[in-house]
């Protein structure tokens, strides 16, 4: 393949990816100027009330508990929403899968792109919590792009097995979503890792969400650089999942039209 034809193919794939995600976003947020408002308010409807409760109503111990919690539930929301979307993504596109040829491996990638766009709005909740607790931004914020990339990579890694799971075990989709939700509670979501016992800490470290949550807290709450392990472990898990499941997905995609109908 020449570099020109490779470039043309990549551009065509990018076109399809963006268009699939755009279709998803239109279905979710509607059309017109109001969609921006809906996009901004959506995360508050999903998570905001819980944060408000923790921050302004409940008297919880620890440093800025509402912000600490936001540093877990915001990145988790990207992973969770991606899994929820991906497990139904193939069946949701049944009509186009049955009608025309296109690269079906872009479907999970499109769900990641859709959820990433949705996720950006939820960062406003972290900003709101920082204001509520008078936590000032520090130079550690320069680490956020790296943390963001790790967050997206982990979501992308989970998207492919989630899409396959939804195809293979459609009736167990809700179970898969509950399983991912359980991962939140098997990570330092409600309290920072430092508040856990040393035994629990050594176990929780194996959960890729742990590093992610801690990295968010380092950047937004404690104003320190995230540790290399906190970034590299979830990134590595995401990349391993992609390396394992993208080929499996690609080998299965020729079967989609048989299964979705």
């Amino acid at each position, binding site marked *: 393949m020449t570099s020109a034809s490779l470039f043309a193919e990549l551009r065509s794939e990018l076109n399809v990816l963006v*268009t699939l995600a755009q279709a998803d976003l239109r279905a979710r947020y509607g059309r017109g100027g109001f969609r921006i408002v809906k996009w901004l308010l959506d995360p508050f409807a999903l998570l905001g009330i819980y944060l408000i409760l923790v921050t302004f109503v409940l008297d919880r111990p620890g440093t800025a508990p509402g912000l600490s919690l936001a540093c877990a539930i915001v990145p988790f929301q990207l992973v969770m929403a991606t899994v929820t979307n991906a497990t139904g993504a193939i069946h949701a596109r049944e009509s186009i899968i049955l009608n025309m040829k296109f690269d079906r491996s872009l479907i999970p990638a499109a769900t990641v792109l859709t959820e990433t766009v949705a996720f950006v709005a939820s960062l406003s909740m972290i900003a709101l919590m920082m204001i509520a607790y008078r936590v000032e931004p520090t130079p550690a914020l320069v680490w956020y792009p790296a943390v963001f990339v790790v967050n997206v990579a982990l979501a992308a890694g989970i998207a492919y097995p989630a899409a396959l799971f939804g195809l293979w075990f459609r009736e167990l989709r809700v179970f898969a979503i509950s399983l991912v939700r359980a991962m939140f509670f098997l990570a330092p979501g409600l309290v920072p890792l430092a508040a856990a016992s040393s035994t629990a800490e050594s176990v929780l470290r194996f959960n890729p969400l742990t590093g992610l949550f801690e990295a968010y807290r380092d950047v937004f709450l404690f104003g320190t650089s995230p540790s290399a392990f906190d970034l590299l472990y979830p990134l590595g898990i995401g990349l391993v999942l992609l390396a394992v499941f993208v080929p499996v997905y690609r080998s299965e995609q020729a*079967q989609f039209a048989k299964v979705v109908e």
Partner: protein
Amino acid sequence: MSAAAITADGIDVRFLFDRYRRVITPTIARLRGHVTEAWGLQDVSFSIGPGEGVALIGPSGSGKTTLLRLLAGVLAPDGGRLVVQGQIGSLLSVKAGLLPTLTGRENAELLAVLGGLSRAEARSSIDRIREESRLGDAFERPVSAFSQGMRARLGFAVANQLEPSILLLDEVHEALDHEFRDEVDRVAQRILSQGGIVVAAGHDHAMLARLSTRALLLRGGRIEEDGEFASVRADYLNEP
């Protein structure tokens, strides 16, 4: 228009079922017991050259839709060799490839990009699609409110914008009104006169006769007869 050609050499399509008769993929079949199989197509060979209109006829479940999906690249053969040369335009499902939550316009843009147009080309073709689909104001409404015929018209208008050299039509075109059937005829004849290929399946033999000079009679996933349309049709109708 690029030269169109289709060659199928001993192609098979196999469906695997679990104990509840749900279709499963080979990967899952390896993990589960009680797997049964059925052949959607078995040892199917034929070739179609430029300018040929071919009808697929046969009883329900004979493999017509499976064969059209193979030609469209929607399915891959489990065995044999299939070569399809040419730009494909297809209308293969009752849902016409449309997503119900999107409007006609949004669906048109999505399908045009999936069909190979750039996003800019897709956007610039929207007015033509709107005009050709004759949906009027409904074009701006969600497709969930469309009738089957409206969906088929939109799907066909998008397929036509892709400038296909191979047009694939399943029974869904039978949902079209007479006025739009004439449009399908006109587009099909244009494709054939330019050296393209039209393959259509259905039970409306009068319509198939207008699109095809040749027919493949399918039964049980195999080609039982391949020949001149009127002759194959007569044999099909005369058989018990």
